[in-house]
């Protein structure tokens, strides 16, 4: 199989965002090209692989067993002084995925829906004519190529260049990105609960997580806000934590990553859209970005089909993409962004006060909103502007 000269839609990057864009567009009958610069989709991973059960089920009628490494029934949050806040339910509320399998399977779904998929194929620039994105330039196995398209979707992750090439400034300020380090550790006792550790000594303006991957394994990682980093690196902090807590564990995988915790960028222009991490759709509080990548990919695939049907690929035509994500991803991001700003300025003592106020309650609504609901009730000092945002229900 070889690359065609022209497609309706080209999707750059085969993470969850790109594969879902390609799948959706192909299902709508469009001619789709999905390219991925790495030789293997999904590897190396840049993720702790945690995802809410409800949110995942919205996108897939069947959750395949091979996607899941562990079903989890709750979250335990430890404040700086060790106070435990538990959020749990008796049922499985979330999954820790096996993203190497999950991501590849999503790309297969795009292929099965009719998209052409090429790995070890990298976009190096956009073709721009009369102010319109008209395709991509790329390199595949050392050979340069050009392919035209009516719409190019940048699903190229945290390192996205598609937006920049189209003139959108996607550069993240150090205060809007977490620098992440993670180990897959084996040989440690784990329950089917996710653990979160807070504190400025442990992870300045960030947190340590331990997400179970089976009975005796976990993704143990850390994210630290870029603006709080000095000589001591995230891996230094993580090593300290692991030494203290998982002395007997064995590290069988090392994971690196940057996690956007910013507001979204502009996400569309003449002949182009951005989805997932490329659009900075990760949640600024949890750092979760899998479901927003999937959701924005579906929106982008749908909008691409509508615009191609109408023959309008202009910025004005593609604006409906932003309209769609604004009310869901956008609202949630706004509230999490403001919450992030509140938390990063809170000293450890403040985090402890919050934890003490709710450590006797079992919280059964497992979400940032569920947690904030309880906190707001017990802590009238939380700024009312912020509190109000969490009273409002957002359509998911």
């Amino acid at each position, binding site marked *: 199989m070889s690359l065609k000269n022209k497609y309706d839609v080209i999707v750059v990057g085969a993470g969850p965002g790109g594969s879902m864009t390609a799948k959706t567009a192909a299902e709508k009958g469009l001619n789709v090209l999905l390219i991925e610069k*790495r030789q293997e989709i999904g590897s190396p991973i840049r993720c702790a692989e945690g995802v809410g059960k409800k949110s995942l089920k919205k996108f897939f009628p069947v959750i395949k067993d091979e996607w899941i490494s562990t079903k989890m029934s709750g979250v335990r949050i430890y404040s700086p002084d060790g106070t435990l806040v538990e959020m749990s339910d008796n049922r499985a509320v979330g999954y820790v995925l096996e993203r190497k399998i999950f991501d590849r399977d999503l790309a297969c779904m795009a292929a099965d829906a009719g998209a052409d998929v090429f790995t070890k194929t990298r976009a190096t620039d956009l073709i721009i004519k009369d102010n319109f994105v008209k395709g991509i330039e790329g390199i595949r196995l050392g050979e340069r190529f050009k392919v035209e398209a009516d719409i190019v979707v940048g699903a190229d992750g*945290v390192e996205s260049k598609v937006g920049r090439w189209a003139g959108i400034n996607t*550069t993240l300020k*150090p205060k809007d990105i977490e620098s992440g380090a993670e180990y897959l550790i084996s040989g440690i006792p784990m329950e089917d609960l996710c653990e979160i550790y807070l504190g400025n000594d442990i992870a300045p303006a960030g947190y340590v997580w331990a997400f179970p991957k089976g009975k005796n394994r976990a993704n143990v990682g850390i994210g630290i806000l870029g603006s709080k*980093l000095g000589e001591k*690196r995230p*891996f230094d902090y993580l090593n300290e934590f692991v030494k203290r807590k998982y002395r007997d564990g064995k590290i069988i995988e*090392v994971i*690196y990553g*940057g996690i956007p915790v910013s507001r979204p960028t502009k996400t569309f222009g003449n002949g182009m859209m951005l989805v997932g991490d490329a659009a900075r759709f990760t949640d600024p509080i949890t750092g979760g970005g899998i479901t927003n990548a999937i959701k924005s990919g579906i929106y982008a695939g749908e909008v691409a089909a509508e615009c191609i049907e109408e023959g309008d690929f202009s910025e004005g035509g593609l604006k409906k993409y932003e309209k769609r994500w604004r009310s869901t991803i956008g609202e949630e991001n706004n509230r999490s962004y403001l919450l992030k700003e509140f938390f990063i300025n809170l000293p450890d003592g403040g985090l402890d006060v919050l934890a003490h106020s709710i450590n006797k309650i079992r919280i059964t609504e497992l979400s940032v909103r569920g947690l904030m609901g309880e906190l707001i009730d017990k802590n009238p000092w939380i700024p009312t502007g912020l509190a109000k945002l969490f009273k409002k229900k957002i359509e998911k």
Partner: protein
Amino acid sequence: MISINRYKCGYCGACVAVCPAGAIELVEAWIEIDGESCVECNNCVKICPIGALEVSDEPKK
């Protein structure tokens, strides 16, 4: 000039995201830095989770 320690780098792309000059590229599984366009802001050095990037004394070519 920014230099990269390829033995430490885990090609995560965090440095690419914070570079205001678009001087860094994550090619498949390695990083390339274009010394010509670098504006020496050190954002990349700061964000790297392991410290694989350093300011080197080598003069700008």
